[in-house]
């Protein structure tokens, strides 16, 4: 147990120092800009005001609740997107006809910005969380699918032969050989999907996110903007950045380190 804590501390320390310099730099530049009064204080608040707003909004639970709401939506959306991409990849592997079909869908759907679909999504799915989840699934599915399919099709022939040699069933072949062998691609897909989903979520919420009391970070930002509470807008942006860093540095980094890194499947 102590060992684990130690490891976590070392990890945090490395990341911490890497980022710390960067953050201190930004804070200093920010504060200097603030003192020049080039911009009105209402639009360009001091570091302290932003910090106070962040602390207050975290302490009163509002920001945490909104963040939780957004993360829940993104979790559901990503899960659905991943399941769908596995199903589609499976279909594409079964036959050439399906493969052509999946290729066509990707070609058509991938470049469509989810936000552009909103008016139609409203008509189909209404105004609730479902519509936002749809936008997230849309932004997750295609990059995920593209990468999974690339991964699957670049699995060495040898691995397939090995699997056949030891008489693995199709399902076991997918889960025992194809998925682990495609992990570098799947992770790449996950990272792109995460970034897109996060952006899609915030923008979709800024357009229509609130329903009674339940709403997410995107809506929080647009509401604070409406209220002209600029420090709170920055506080929410900080939360968004922190989550980005946490997911990128802690989650994906660790995931890769503990899997494909450990297995020598990353070319470094």
């Amino acid at each position, binding site marked *: 147990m102590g060992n684990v804590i130690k490891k976590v501390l070392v990890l945090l320390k490395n990341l911490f120092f890497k980022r710390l310099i960067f953050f201190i730099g930004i804070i200093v530049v920010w504060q200097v800009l603030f003192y020049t009064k080039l911009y009105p204080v209402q639009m360009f608040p001091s570091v302290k005001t932003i910090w106070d707003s962040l602390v207050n909004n975290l302490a009163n639970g509002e920001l945490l609740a909104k963040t939780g709401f957004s993360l829940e939506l993104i979790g559901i959306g990503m899960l659905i997107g991943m399941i769908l991409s596995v199903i589609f990849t499976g279909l594409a592997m079964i036959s050439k006809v399906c493969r052509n079909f999946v290729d066509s869908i990707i070609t058509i759907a991938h470049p469509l910005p989810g936000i552009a679909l909103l008016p139609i999504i409203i008509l189909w799915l209404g*105004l609730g969380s479902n519509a936002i989840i749809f936008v997230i699934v849309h932004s997750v599915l295609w990059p995920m699918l593209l990468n999974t399919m690339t991964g699957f099709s670049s699995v060495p022939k040898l691995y397939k032969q090995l699997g056949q040699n030891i008489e693995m069933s199709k399902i076991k072949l997918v889960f025992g050989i194809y998925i682990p062998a495609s992990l570098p691609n799947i992770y790449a897909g996950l990272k792109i999907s995460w970034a897109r989903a996060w952006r899609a979520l915030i923008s979709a919420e800024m357009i229509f996110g609130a329903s009674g009391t339940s709403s997410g970070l995107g809506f929080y930002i647009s509401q604070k903007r409406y209220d002209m509470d600029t420090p709170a807008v920055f506080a929410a942006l900080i939360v968004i950045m922190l989550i980005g860093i946490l997911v990128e540095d802690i989650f994906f980094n660790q995931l890769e380190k503990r899997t494909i890194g450990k297995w020598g499947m990353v070319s470094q």
Partner: protein
Amino acid sequence: MKRRMLSLVIVLGLVASLALTGCNEAKPGATNAPTVGTIKIAYQNGLSYSPFYVMQEMKIIEKYLPNVKVEWTVLASGSAVSEGLAAGSLDIGVMGVAPLLTAWDKGFSMKIFSGLVNSPLGLVVLDDKYMSLKNFTEPNKDKIAVPAPKSIQHILLSMAAQKQLGKATALDEYLKALAHPDAQTALLNKIDIVAHFSSPPFLFSEVAKGGKVAVDGFDAFGGDFSFLVSVASKKFMDEQPAYAGAVYMAMSETIGLINSKDDAAVQVIMSKEKLTKDTAIKYLDWAGTNFTTTPYGLAGLAKYMKDVGYIEKLPASYSDYCWSTATATIGQRAGGPSVLEKAQNRK
């Protein structure tokens, strides 16, 4: 006709001189000589903003200031207007009184330059059941669309809730923040919402398509109020008082043209709003629609916003959040339209 023109000139001259003296007081020693050759003005899309685009298309400001370049921007949201004014990238913009009071409360350096329009706002429902606010019983099903929490639509709904249900926040759980076009689509297609606190032209088209007004904005407010006002930055008022006076005169003239259904002005509105002449006239004549440079209902709204906590302090006087161009017109209308409003052909 001649008499009308004469009174217009007199009033405009009066207002312009008021503007000038007001600004000189604010910044002693400032010269009246222009230091910039441009005026940056922003408005948003919609019939309510018509005095601005008519003024732009008919080059009415240029009539008063032939050597000045006017830069027009069409923005997508009121937030962008206040940000532009605060950042100095705009001189004059259009916004609601509620956001302006919020801006004043937060210390933004901008004030009301003039009134723009009083509009009939209303809670539109399709189902007769919802004609009474008492029948909104399921927060997850009986959703009410408003453009944003704390918007004038939300405030009017709260005022109506206070009157009908005894509690201003009674319907807050039922709110769904939605832009007007989306809300209109959702209401008419019966998707997720049952009511929309609407404003023109959405109010007009929703009513035309079978919507009924369950709550009238003026009833809820208890009188006339400005739906939109024009707002000018402190920098502009300090540095360009002469321009400010000219813009005020141009705006006054434009509003006069619109109110008298001047052919050229109506043509501009028709092409911008993609309306037939009949519909355009019908919309302009809609009961409650009044274009006027006089702001209405300011103190009442400020008091309400303070009461419900949307703003932290109560303005001590109009001049806290109004430039002299606006304060000059407020006191003049007791008992009926003022000289200025009559000059602008107010109904």
